[in-house]
């Protein structure tokens, strides 16, 4: 394919200076802002994790007091979920969806700007709590009452930060759905949409359905704390367990919000480097939709040990295990896509392959946790920590990094350094397994999560895990370097096509694409 000559009659000049970024209505600028915000949160949230792993390097209390340790675990989760992973996906959506469907921009460009510019303010509210009397929130990111109601000055800041993040996510999701429903180029039918677009539409639906429920849950916390309501106070007829139900009604779809776009990214990368079309395209869409539907009826598997009626335990166990079916379809299709493909192993493909293997490990440990009787042993142990880090770090984050390597040449017009990319991959993959795999053993042996000190029997695996953490953290500096290098115009020039096996409208544009692309709708082959 060759680059298409684009009409150059722009309505307004290419803006410059700081106001370009503050006032922008351009999907590429907003995508860049999201991605830069996400990477800065990745490093802030990562530094909190380094504190946690440093403290757990050896038994006993070394560096921080238990209260600060709890602040670190809580803030690590909040920053990584709402600050790093979710904005990264929205950034990728902003950059790629309009170019993939042949649209001139997102459907509601000013709203798009607002979705982004709420985030720095929300995280200012959240991170400022670190410097407040009583410190940051320390009751866990799940904010269970009554514990969370003991939070000091930080409490209302936490609640309002969550509200602002929710508004941002819902508006971003509305924009994505509207864009895909209304802005597709003529001929870009629903069965021609790239899978990344499909997974994002379904994710957007999950966001719009789940985030307002979180807003409701934290609003009830706020009124319980300050206005004397008794939603979560049994003395007034409420129930603290009710918070867990409302929270996880949001929380489980949230888990899929963080993985479905990752499925989409992998479904773009694997066919490109296997040089074969995606196997089972339609079944992939049905699988994602099924996972999304199931995500709303499995929430109480996070609360098997709170004392639910037996019927509840059984229902949530069976519905949870059912998710393995569509997930299995996806993994099978990725493997079948590679079967007899003409494969090469550039950096994005390495991340995608590793995603498939390591995410499956996280999926299998999830299956173990989904069995109610077995979960009674695993609940709140390091096994749970190992499980969700396999799906979130080697799942979501690996897919995001793979996606960045995959699309970076398109965005910047420069190839990243392949040697450094591969070094980053191998260091990360080895260290991340050293970091999280031993946590399975720790959890099965009974080590509880969210504690700053532990019995001596857990010392060896904790030390190895911490070493893995430090190496993994440091490896990400290579990533930062390669990205900055490409952004600042160093490296080999990239063609419009970039990858030999790449297909789709986005690859018909030059690299970097013009500031306004597809102002005239392209012809869809």
């Amino acid at each position, binding site marked *: 394919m060759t680059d298409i000559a684009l009409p150059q009659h722009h309505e307004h000049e290419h803006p410059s200076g700081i106001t370009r970024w503050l006032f922008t209505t351009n999907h590429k600028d907003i995508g860049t802002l999201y991605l830069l915000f996400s990477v800065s949160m990745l490093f802030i949230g990562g530094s909190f994790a380094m504190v946690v792993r440093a403290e757990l390097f050896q038994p006993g209390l070394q560096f921080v007091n238990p209260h600060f340790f709890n602040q670190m675990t809580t803030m690590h989760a909040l920053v990584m979920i709402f600050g790093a992973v979710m904005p990264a996906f929205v950034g990728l959506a902003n950059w790629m969806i309009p170019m993939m469907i042949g649209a001139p921009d997102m459907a509601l460009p*000013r709203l798009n*700007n607002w979705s982004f510019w709420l985030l720095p303010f929300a995280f200012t509210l959240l991170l400022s709590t670190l410097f407040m009397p009583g410190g940051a929130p320390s009751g866990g990111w799940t904010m269970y009452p009554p514990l969370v109601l003991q939070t000091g000055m930080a409490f209302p800041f936490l609640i309002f930060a969550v509200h602002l993040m929710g*508004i941002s996510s819902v508006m971003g999701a509305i924009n994505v759905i509207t864009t895909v429903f209304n802005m597709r180029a003529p001929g870009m039918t629903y069965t021609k949409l790239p899978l990344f677009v499909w997974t994002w539409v379904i994710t957007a639906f999950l966001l719009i359905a789940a*985030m307002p429920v979180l807003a409701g849950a934290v609003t009830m916390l706020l009124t319980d704390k300050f206005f004397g309501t008794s*939603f979560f106070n049994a003395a007034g007829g409420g129930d603290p367990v009710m918070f867990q139900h409302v929270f996880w009604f949001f929380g489980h779809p949230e888990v899929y919000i963080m993985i479905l776009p990752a499925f989409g990214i992998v479904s773009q990368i694997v066919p490109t480097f296997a040089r074969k079309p995606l196997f089972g395209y339609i079944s992939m869409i049905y699988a994602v939709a099924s996972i999304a539907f199931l995500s709303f009826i499995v929430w109480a598997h996070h609360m098997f040990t709170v004392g639910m009626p037996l019927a509840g335990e059984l229902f949530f166990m069976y519905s949870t295990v059912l998710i393995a079916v569509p997930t299995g379809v996806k993994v099978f299709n990725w493997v079948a896509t590679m079967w007899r493909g003409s494969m090469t192993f550039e950096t994005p493909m390495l991340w995608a392959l590793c995603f498939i293997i390591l995410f499956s490990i996280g999926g299998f440990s999830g299956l173990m946790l989904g069995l109610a009787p077995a979960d009674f042993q695993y609940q709140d142990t390091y096994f749970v920590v190992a499980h969700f880090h396999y799906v979130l770090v080697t799942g979501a984050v690996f897919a995001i990094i793979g996606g960045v390597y995959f699309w970076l040449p398109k965005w910047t017009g420069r190839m990243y350094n392949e040697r450094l990319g591969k070094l980053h991959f191998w260091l990360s993959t080895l260290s991340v397994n050293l970091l999280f795999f031993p946590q399975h053993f720790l959890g099965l042996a009974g080590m509880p999560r969210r504690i700053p000190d532990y019995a001596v029997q857990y010392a060896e695996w904790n030390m190895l895990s911490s070493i893995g953490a430090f190496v993994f953290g440091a490896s990400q500096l290579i990533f930062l370097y390669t990205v900055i290098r490409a952004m600042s115009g160093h490296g080999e020039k990239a063609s419009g096509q970039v990858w030999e096996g790449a297909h789709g409208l986005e690859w018909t544009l030059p690299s970097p694409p013009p500031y306004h692309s597809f102002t005239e709708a392209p012809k869809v082959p």
Partner: protein
Amino acid sequence: MNPAAISHYYVPEPSHWPLLGSIGLFSLTGGSALLLTDHVTGGSFAMGVGFLIFVGMLCGWFGAVIKESEGGRYNDQVDVSFRWGMAWFIFSEVMFFAAFFGALFYVRHFAVPWLGGIGDKASTHEILWPSFVAAWPLLQLPDASQFTVAKHAMEAAGLPAFNTLILLSSGATVTWAHWGIKAGRRNHLIIGLCLTVALGALFLSLQAHEYWDAYTVQNLRLTSGIYGSTFFMLTGFHGAHVLIGAIMLSVVLARSARGHFTPTHHFAFEAASWYWHFVDVVWLGLFVTVYLL
């Protein structure tokens, strides 16, 4: 200009309104948080400033959109984007209410009966509050010492039933107004909108009266245990949405009086009326689950 004739999708110029909105919300929420943590002066100030900035942003942003719309910048495709945007926004609001309806369902069907010793929760009942009797509306609390004890539950008959009638009628008047705009009869449209806004205002003032009655006569408050909590949370958020809907309709009314909208191009009217019907439906759910059952 005929909007359908514009081929290009309108991509707006860079805009300072969203950033201003973020600053406003930041100051509003940060100020509220300071106020709640006993920093009264600074908190109230930041809240007030944030609120003003936010309101200013809404006026400016919507003003810009109205100007662009009246200037014929939006083609049919832009109109469809607005429709999807509004529809999904209303869906997000539905889910926000779902959290509170879910809480009401959970306490009525699980939490309160369990505290009364139903099912396998007998030991909870015996250990915590053995003399507690589960009932709904819950006036006799498990531990009344922490709460304001209400004298009576709210009646469905009387004022709430009347309010139901008012809100249903306002749904009819807004549809009648829509017939007016589609037939190009501006006076018909304006009368319909006036009636709708007036009914909305009547609803709100009656609800204010009901709240006053609850607080002073019935002694039912937010602090009266789970019945008061769910009652005020659901009706309060609903009331706030009626207010927002009434403001939207008032803006549409003012625009109609200025000669905005045509029989084929009037999405702002439709958006406000969709919102109004949504508020109406929430009230029906509320009337049944909060007052009747």
